[in-house]
């Protein structure tokens, strides 16, 4: 008997929870629309001297429900979006939730954050004074199936730039597209805020807070967290990009590789190999790098040092197989290497053995090192 009673109690509680959930959902979905006219008129019936008298109506009391302007902007990210310099159409996502008692439009804009705006995602995530390029706003094609989650369709580049008629208690995704700048320090943070301004669902004009009550018309009462900004309602949220750049260092060293007497000294007739070491300590790869080196007039550039005497510049890219190029005056082999008699310019390499003349750009991946070797000879005369 006790057990049955407990079971019933549990079911009753579950039922109560279900009802509570249902009521909560209903509470979120309802809300008298702005402009609805509510009237109230009482009636009295009575007798005098035992005789029924004609009912008497009171005066009509009426008012128009005003517009409660309330909404939020919420970013969807959980951390800065890592982006390599120069990347196009990177994005950060937000959703805008209409908590008002009727449809609203939202005019959308963005702000480039500045260092003073503070951390975006905690310590060390403040904007570092770098701006994103070509920022645009795109709104999703449909509201979120689950309001307040941003689970609607992903906005596409070139999508609508304003939110049109977002129903009450609904949310919709908004994406800020941007191009990463071409030049910025590795680790720079470029922050953006999405700024949504509540607008009239009919005219798309920014809603102004009503200064005084106008009987019979819809007044705008700002209930959003930021209240009135100027005389309009703006809500924002911040997000940002962590920019990855290459950080190259270049070191040159030399070593005597041969001399007529095996002395290991740079005497006339000795050959000296220069090694240029390029290291990328940044977070992004460097591509299409070009190296220039002024060869001292007192030494002679050796034209047949590597690759079975077919090349004069050697690359070690850490792949286990070295590459080469042939620096000739006219760059007749188009491999990106030239030597004009004084300056060695290296902007390409040849991965083929024997050389097949392709001009392959020289890239240095993040964390990688490339060494370039060439040889000069101390003239004997």
């Amino acid at each position, binding site marked *: 008997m006790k057990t049955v009673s407990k079971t019933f109690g549990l079911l009753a509680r579950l039922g109560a929870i279900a009802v509570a959930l249902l009521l909560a959902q209903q509470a979120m979905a309802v809300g*008298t629309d702005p402009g609805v006219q509510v009237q109230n*008129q009482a009636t*009295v019936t*009575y007798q005098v001297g035992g005789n029924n*008298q*004609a009912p*008497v109506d009171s005066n009509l009391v009426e008012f128009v429900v005003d*517009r409660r302007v309330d909404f939020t902007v919420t970013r969807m990210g959980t951390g800065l979006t890592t982006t390599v310099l120069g990347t196009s159409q990177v994005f950060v996502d937000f959703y805008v939730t209409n908590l008002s008692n009727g449809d609203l439009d939202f005019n959308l804009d963005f702000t480039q954050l500045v260092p003073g705006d503070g951390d975006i995602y905690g310590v060390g995530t403040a904007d570092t004074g770098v701006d994103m390029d070509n920022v645009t706003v795109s709104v999703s094609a449909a509201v979120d199936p689950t309001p307040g989650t941003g689970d609607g369709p992903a906005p596409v580049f070139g999508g609508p730039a304003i939110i049109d008629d977002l129903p009450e208690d609904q949310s919709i995704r908004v994406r800020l597209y941007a191009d990463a700048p071409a030049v910025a320090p590795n680790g720079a943070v470029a922050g953006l805020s999405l700024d949504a301004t509540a607008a009239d669902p009919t005219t798309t004009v920014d809603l102004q807070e009503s200064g005084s009550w106008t009987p019979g018309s819809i007044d705008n009462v700002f209930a959003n967290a930021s209240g009135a900004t100027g005389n309009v309602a703006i809500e924002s949220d911040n997000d940002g990009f962590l920019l990855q750049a290459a950080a190259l260092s270049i070191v040159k060293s030399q070593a005597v590789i041969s001399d007529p007497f095996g002395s290991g000294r740079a005497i006339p007739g000795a050959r000296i190999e220069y090694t240029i070491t390029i290291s990328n300590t940044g977070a992004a790869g460097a591509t299409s790098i070009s190296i220039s080196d002024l060869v001292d007039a007192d030494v002679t550039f050796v034209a047949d040092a590597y690759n079975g005497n077919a090349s004069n510049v050697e690359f070690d890219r850490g792949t286990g197989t070295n590459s080469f190029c042939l620096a000739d005056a006219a760059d007749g082999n188009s491999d990106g290497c030239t030597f004009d008699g004084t300056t060695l310019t290296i902007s390409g390499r040849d991965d083929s053995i024997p050389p097949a003349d392709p001009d392959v750009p020289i890239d240095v991946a993040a964390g990688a090192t490339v060494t370039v070797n060439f040889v000069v000879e101390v003239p004997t005369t």
Partner: protein
Amino acid sequence: MSVQKFVLAMIGVLLAGGALAQDSVELTSSVYKQVLVEKDDGSTETQLVAADNVLPGDRLVFRNTIRNISAEPAESIVITNPIEEELVYVAGSAEGEGMAIEFSVDGGQSFAAANALRVVDNGIERPATTKDYTHVRWVMQTELAAGAEGTTSFAADVE
């Protein structure tokens, strides 16, 4: 229309007009918004202010004042006030000194005390909630003397 019927009709119109002119009571309605006001000492109190900006969630107080403007006492006074569908009656808020308070959940066709009201929802009968109320009425338990007045009130939230 015969002359006889016309005359009867005119008499009816005149009687109706006469009845309007000779009402023994007058009923005045007003509405206020209930707001929470913080006082200088940090405590709060509710106040009634003009129902200017009305928003969903606002609590409104409707007040009716009945006054006997005749020289005779008025009896069997019943004041009925509809509750618009945009409003939800606030439980226990109806007041009226010397009056029995009843509610309707069927558009004013029948009335009963709050705890006696039941509705059929999707084929299942259940006790009525304040959201179901369509009308509130006050049944004055005594007569209203000549020149006397009485007040009724109730609160409702804007959905």
